[in-house]
């Protein structure tokens, strides 16, 4: 039922327009035929171009996957698994323990999610449900600017401005997992905000009207009706935000200290320096001789990252797919 209530999609819009243009009876049968032929020729070209770009994505992804496998699989075959998941990463001495890097990526990402999700969701709710139009028109461009800031600039800000603050709070050094998390949170905020806002927007107006008509307050409507209805889109927003956080490299490399350390599990871990998988690849890829074990292990880390992000995406589609396919509003 949601489908019918949604505003026109763009394809519907164009077909309506063309029908109007070629519809009038004044037109002779011949020119109508010419028109149609022209249209079908250009349509054929456009269709094939689109198909080609679609296929190229599949080809590229497959190529990446095979390249990763070819270069990285040796890491998993040549190094005993126990060593590969050992606790020490010191490649120049042949210590290839990936565990500290995984833990590092984990903490930075968790920290980023904890900061970004509440901030992102509340911002999106404010933008989509509460803010009057004029405020929204001011806020939206700012969020777009935030999305446009190159990550290295945010990383530099973190290095210059945020790290000293965190050091003053009592951490031995300002270069910690939390510093990275904070930067990453702001990097993934635009993604979370805009997708959540889209999801909220796709909730049919009738839901809100119905809720308000039954005497619910605006907050009750948002919390009990709109948010549950937009649940799948919100999950997607969070997942994509996490994906952005895990994959980010340069900013994280600048501010997390890059110590391949395994902090004790707990809140304090956020204020320890860590080393992420992405930063490790970036820092060390230039140094390795092609074909060496170290080179293979760096690609092995790439495989781990690939698997983790694919897992997150898969989970996201699962969670979203379970609640009515591609129906942004979802079911109540």
């Amino acid at each position, binding site marked *: 039922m949601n489908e019918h209530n949604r*505003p026109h*999609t*763009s394809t519907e819009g164009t077909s309506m327009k063309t029908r109007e243009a070629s519809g009038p009876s004044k037109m002779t049968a011949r020119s109508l035929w010419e028109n149609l032929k022209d249209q079908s020729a250009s349509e054929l070209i456009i269709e094939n171009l689109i198909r080609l*770009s679609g296929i*190229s*994505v599949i080809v*590229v992804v497959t*190529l990446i996957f095979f390249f990763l496998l070819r270069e990285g699989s040796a890491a998993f075959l040549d190094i005993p698994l126990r060593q590969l998941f050992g*606790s*020490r990463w*010191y*490649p*120049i*001495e042949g*210590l290839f323990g990936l565990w*500290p890097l995984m833990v590092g990526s984990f903490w930075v990402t968790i920290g980023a999610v904890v900061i970004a999700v509440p901030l992102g969701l509340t911002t999106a709710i404010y933008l989509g449900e509460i803010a009057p*139009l004029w405020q929204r028109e001011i806020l939206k461009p700012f969020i777009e600017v935030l999305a446009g800031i190159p990550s290295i600039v945010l990383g530099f800000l973190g*290095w210059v401005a945020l*790290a*000293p603050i965190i*050091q003053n709070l009592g951490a*031995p*050094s*300002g*270069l910690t997992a939390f510093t990275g998390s904070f930067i990453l949170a702001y990097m993934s905020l635009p993604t979370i905000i805009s997708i959540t806002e*889209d999801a909220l*927007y796709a909730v049919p*107006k009738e839901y*809100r*009207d119905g809720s*308000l008509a039954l005497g619910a307050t605006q907050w009750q409507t948002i919390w009990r009706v709109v948010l549950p209805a937009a649940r799948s889109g919100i999950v997607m927003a969070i997942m994509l935000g996490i994906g952005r956080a895990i994959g980010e490299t340069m900013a994280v*490399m*600048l501010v997390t*200290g*890059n*110590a*391949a*350390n*395994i902090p004790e599990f707990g809140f304090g871990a956020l204020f*320890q*320096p860590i*080393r992420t998988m992405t930063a490790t690849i970036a*820092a*060390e890829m*230039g*140094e*390795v*001789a*092609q074909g*060496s074990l170290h080179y293979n292990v760096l690609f092995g880390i790439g495989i781990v990252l690939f698997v983790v992000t694919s897992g997150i995406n898969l989970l996201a589609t699962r969670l979203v797919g379970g609640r009515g396919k591609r129906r942004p509003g979802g079911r109540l």
Partner: protein
Amino acid sequence: MNNGNLELTERRYPASRQNPSTNKRLVGAVLSFILLLSLSLMGCARTNTADSGSDSASGSGEKRAIQNKGSDTLVNIALAWAETYRQIEPDVSIAVTGGGSGTGIAALINGTVDIANASRAMKEKEITAAQENGIEPFEIVVAIDALAVIVHPDNPVEGLTLQQLADLYTGRITNWKDVGGSDAPVVLLSRETNSGTHVYFLEEAVRLGDSENKDIFAPQTLLMPSSVGITSELRRNPNAIGYDGLGYVDPEHEKIIPISREDGMPYVQPSVETALDGRYPLARNLFMYTAGEPTGDVAAYLDWIKSAAGQEIVSRLGFVPLESNE
């Protein structure tokens, strides 16, 4: 609420107009990836033909280029050399890039540079890898560097023995009060593992020059991507300790710690003099490597570097010139 409905429809259209642009961005991304892929393939192809390339470069031609890459410690000297040499030999252009000794040596092994800069000697493993690629590395000492151990100016520590330095960097000592400082945690700073300075420090300080010793840096050591990373963190962190080439240390903002070889022996400040007479324990040779014995332009360039004119630049930048040219 009717008003709200209007807003909704208003907003829909810009949203749907965005779709083609995201699609375009996607296509752009795909195209740039394909471009990148083909470039990297070309890079692979170049690897195989680099030998003949450098041969033709050292032969007679209008524009002869020398590719020079590696150690960040050496990069400033190498740049100064290249700039000065351009005035002497305008037909030869020398492209200098940094990235770390490991990076330069890897490039030499992969055959993509003419000269690799290194702040450490090549390892057995790397020499074998080069030989497998048909490259016989040729080593030239081009300058000497003293490695300064630096702390925040407010740090009260007046001197460290090599043993204390090793204990600090392996994590056996984690509080400054154990080496005569205040009661504060030690924050260890180091270069990344691709840095020759890192490897030199590992061998001479962390392992005290003992090749049987398998100690490595404590896991909590912060690995900085550059010398600047170390100095700027050090300037704001009173608990930090780091190390850097003498030429990169600014004594106004960083405190240089005198180092003693053993307990009871004098603490020595690093300087050109103490590095040359061997009193300062953390002095090392800086190297350039070529594929095989250098010929043509590369040989002329290296000879010039070792000459008095080349070594004058070394001392001007705060490093230690080769003894023979004193």
